């Protein structure tokens, strides 16, 4: 396979193709008749997946950026179209290309009006998300980061639930506020680095090499990056946009929001905020703040999820909890914890994505998101019940499923630097079991006491097609994570080494990381 891909020059054009194809697809969707829209979108997203699948074989498990592309864009400001993939972004790219065809398939019957713009926006969104993960020029990164906001804003605002306008503008404003401050920070680094080195360039490598010159302002610059990413993650207390956006978005929108968009925040920390400003990130006060907020997020998200009467809202709050683990794992900065954090990012995309799909399927059947509206579904819809149970267990982190691998690695890796925080975070896993098991108990088991629920249809073939790949991933990562870890490891090691090299002050966490190695 690898030889064949090398023969067709795969590494040279793959990223270009991944970014351009959806845009062409979007134009095509708008030009063709309404009835063909979803079919076209499905073919384009499937094409994306097939193209991106080659990354799995051709990716070399080393720390260097691969599949790089550099093309001049605005030479006057040193802006170039620079792309590349490493172990941190590889799985996020694959997760995106895997989720998108499923999201299109999941929207098949749900979206009944204005299909053309809907699917066109989905495709534009694909480009935006992939662009964020592969951009190696901070200007390009920022452009993608913002552009992806527009399609999501419209998807929530036009095809969402009853409170969609409020949710859409809240989502937009929160992200916009954070990202604009990041924009000033990027600009400041660009000018300071440019002035010190004489070379004005937005290249990621250039920033990384010369980041030492911004030391006097590092705290504020880190703050601007961290705020943008913390809103996106979302970290407690910047999470309030999330329940609204997730609940009001149409099913596929929620899946994409939870599955991919939230990862941009943690990806941003891993790719930019932490490597650029390691000594700020591991300043004891910052460290304490981040770890505390991460743990609060884990516990708070779980507790709030427990009392939600609305199934979609429950899943939304569970995201706050899961992403807290990722933040803890990044800040623990041991090999296991960073690998675990990246695996959780992947897992959360799969499991929570699947949960949102299932919530959407329940909604399509009953037009209600209330947990109380269901009960005893296991008797009428056994297949749906089985899938929901498996997915819930994976989200809880049952051994043998993907959720276990990530959370275990994070907890093991974080114990040494932050024993107390890890102990408290572990209780979050218990809470997760509580809210999800309680929810599926009320939905699937108990008595079938509502008349409306008696005639519900079981999963259709299309729905099985949506959930099948996700189930496969749940077990693949859960039972045989080695190929994933192997591809992540060099990048994680490089990140840790990079941080250690710049953080001269050797804090406890950094020492912990070196012990772990």
């Amino acid at each position, binding site marked *: 396979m690898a030889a064949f891909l090398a023969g067709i020059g795969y590494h040279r054009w793959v990223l270009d193709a991944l970014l351009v194809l959806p845009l062409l697809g979007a134009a095509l969707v708008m030009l063709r008749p309404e009835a063909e829209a979803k079919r076209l979108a499905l073919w384009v997203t499937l094409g994306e997946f097939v193209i991106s699948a080659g990354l799995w074989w051709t990716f070399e498990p080393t720390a260097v950026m691969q599949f790089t592309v550099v093309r001049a864009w*605005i*030479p*006057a*400001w040193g802006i170039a179209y620079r792309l590349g993939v490493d172990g941190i972004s590889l799985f996020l790219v694959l997760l995106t290309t895997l989720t998108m065809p499923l999201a299109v398939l999941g929207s098949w019957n749900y979206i009944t009006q*204005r299909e053309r713009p809907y699917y066109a926006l989905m495709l534009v969104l694909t480009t935006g998300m992939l662009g964020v993960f592969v951009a190696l020029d901070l200007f390009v990164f*920022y*452009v993608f980061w*913002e*552009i992806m906001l*527009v399609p999501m804003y*419209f998807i929530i*605002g*036009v095809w969402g639930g009853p409170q*969609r*306008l409020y949710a*859409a*503008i809240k989502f*937009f*404003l929160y992200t*916009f*506020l954070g990202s*604009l*401050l990041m*924009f*000033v920070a990027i*600009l*400041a680094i*660009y*000018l300071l680095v440019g002035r010190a080195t004489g070379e004005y360039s937005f290249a990621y490598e250039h920033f990384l090499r010369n980041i030492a010159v911004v030391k006097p302002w590092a705290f504020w610059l880190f703050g601007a990056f961290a705020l943008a990413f913390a809103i996106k993650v979302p970290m407690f207390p910047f999470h309030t946009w999330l329940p609204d956006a997730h609940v009001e978005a149409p099913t596929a929108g929620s899946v994409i929001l939870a599955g991919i968009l939230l990862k941009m925040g943690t990806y941003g920390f891993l790719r930019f905020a932490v490597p650029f400003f390691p000594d700020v990130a591991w300043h004891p006060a910052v460290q304490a703040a981040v770890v505390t907020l991460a743990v609060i997020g884990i516990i708070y998200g779980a507790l709030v999820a427990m009392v939600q009467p609305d199934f979609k809202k429950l899943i939304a709050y569970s995201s706050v909890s899961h992403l807290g683990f990722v933040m803890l794992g990044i800040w623990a900065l041991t090999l296991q914890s960073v690998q675990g954090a990246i695996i959780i990012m992947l897992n959360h995309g799969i499991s929570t994505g699947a949960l949102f799909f299932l919530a959407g399927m329940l909604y399509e059947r009953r037009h209600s998101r209330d947990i109380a509206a269901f009960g005893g579904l296991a008797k009428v819809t056994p297949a749906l019940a089985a899938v929901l149970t498996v997915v819930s267990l994976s989200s809880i982190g049952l051994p043998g499923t993907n959720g276990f691998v990530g959370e275990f690695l994070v907890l093991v890796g974080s114990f040494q630097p932050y024993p107390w925080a890890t102990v408290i975070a572990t209780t979050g896993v218990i809470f997760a079991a509580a809210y999800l098991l309680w929810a599926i108990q009320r939905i699937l088991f108990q008595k079938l006491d509502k008349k409306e629920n008696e005639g519900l249809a079981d999963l259709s073939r299309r729905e099985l097609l949506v959930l099948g790949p996700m189930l496969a991933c749940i077990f693949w990562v859960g039972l045989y994570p080695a190929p994933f870890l192997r591809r992540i490891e060099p990048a994680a090691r490089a990140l840790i080494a990079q941080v250690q090299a710049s953080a001269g002050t050797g804090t406890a966490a950094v020492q912990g990381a070196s012990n772990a190695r």
Partner: protein
Amino acid sequence: MPVDLSTAAGVTLALAPELVLTAWCLVVMLAIAWRHQDEADQRAAGWLSLAGIGITAIPVIWLWVSEARAVGIAGAMALDSFRYLSALVFLAGAAFTVLLSLGYLGRERIRVPEYYLLILLAVLGMLFMGGGADLIVIFLGLELMSVPVYVLAGVNRRSVVGAEAALKYFLLGAFASGFLLYGIALVYGATGTTNLALIGAQASGFALDSNPMALIGMALLLVGFGFKVAAVPFHMWTPDVYDGAPTPITGFMAAAVKAAGFAALVRVLLQAFGGAPAWHEAVWWLAMVTMVAGNLMALAQRQLKRLLAYSSIAHAGYLLAAVTSGNEAGAAAFLFYAVAYTLMTVGGFAVVAAAGRDGERDVLVEDLNGLASRRPWVAAGMTVFLLSLLGFPGTAGFIGKWYILSAAVDAGQYLLAVVLVLASVISAGYYLPPIMAMYMRPEPSPEAHQGTVISGAPRFVVALAAAALLVLGFWPNVVLEAAREGGAGLRSAVTYTLAP
């Protein structure tokens, strides 16, 4: 190409665009006197004026391409790329206005053939403002621009608000001119000259900063220009005037008139007072207050025209932020932003004009409800304009804002940069609701948007402006290079950093 301004030939050459436009004004005037009976004659006058605008662009471009540079004595007209690029921006703004007016005047039954002549005269004034290298020339340009615009604001004689707008604009504008003139007099008293280059040459020698006469003169100049560009706290006239004037003229005032005021301000501050850091702090405060107040006041507007009026105040704040940086990058950022701003403002008002058909009624944000399902292209165009005004990536507004920010950060103005982006976040609070209304709210009735048709010339304007904004958002290189060259044209600019 060297142009000796001490010879008659040199002066003629330097004034070529203005002379051509003046001659064309006479032609249009005669044409109107000859034929002014009906609608068709009025349209003919419009096309004739448009041709004049196009023809005037030729000597501008020719001067630019042949790299005309002044030699000999310090002249009253500048020969630099700043002048040429700003002149092209004014001409483009006027051309768009004429195109929008062609259908508008007939629809609103405004029969004033002189309308187009007044636009041409105003543009002539703008050319002098952007190119004047002498305070007196700039003042003459300002008056030549202002008087026709006073008339244009009230050109719809049946409209009470139009009359109110014209009167208000005239009274306050006259006041502002008084300030400006008095400021010029004081500066002349302090330096003995009105030539920008000569003032600049003496600025350090005369210890301008400690010379109270010069300081007061400079302050009065700032007040005068502040009125013209609608900077807070000199903005009081703006909403009422913008609201009352015919919509294409509102677009003209918000785009070209404002840009002309800024062009003159930038030139005066950088060329004459580049060596006098006293103004930096004043403009810094003006920029701060204008950005914050303009955006906050816009938040409260429900009427589209007033919303865009307040948003134009906010944009004046952004432009002032570019001026504050006080260097060539700031001037270049101003030029680029002026290009983008002209396109998005004219486009936005074109859509408002279309939505307000059948009598100039107030178009509320709610009146756009469901526009996207009935008129998808109009809604798409408006979305591009609003996102560009918001400074969203992928549009020219983003590149412009980026340029201003980078000029500000480069000059060490971190606080100003942060306030600018926070103000932009506030602006999302009023730029997004029209988009939400168009796309996310249902149409009130199937007939609601029957009348919202953009056809003919206005359609061309909207399509061109939207396409240009998107193209400049992704490939800004050519205009960026031109703006950089234009900024560098103000050679005598001195870089100052200011601790806020």
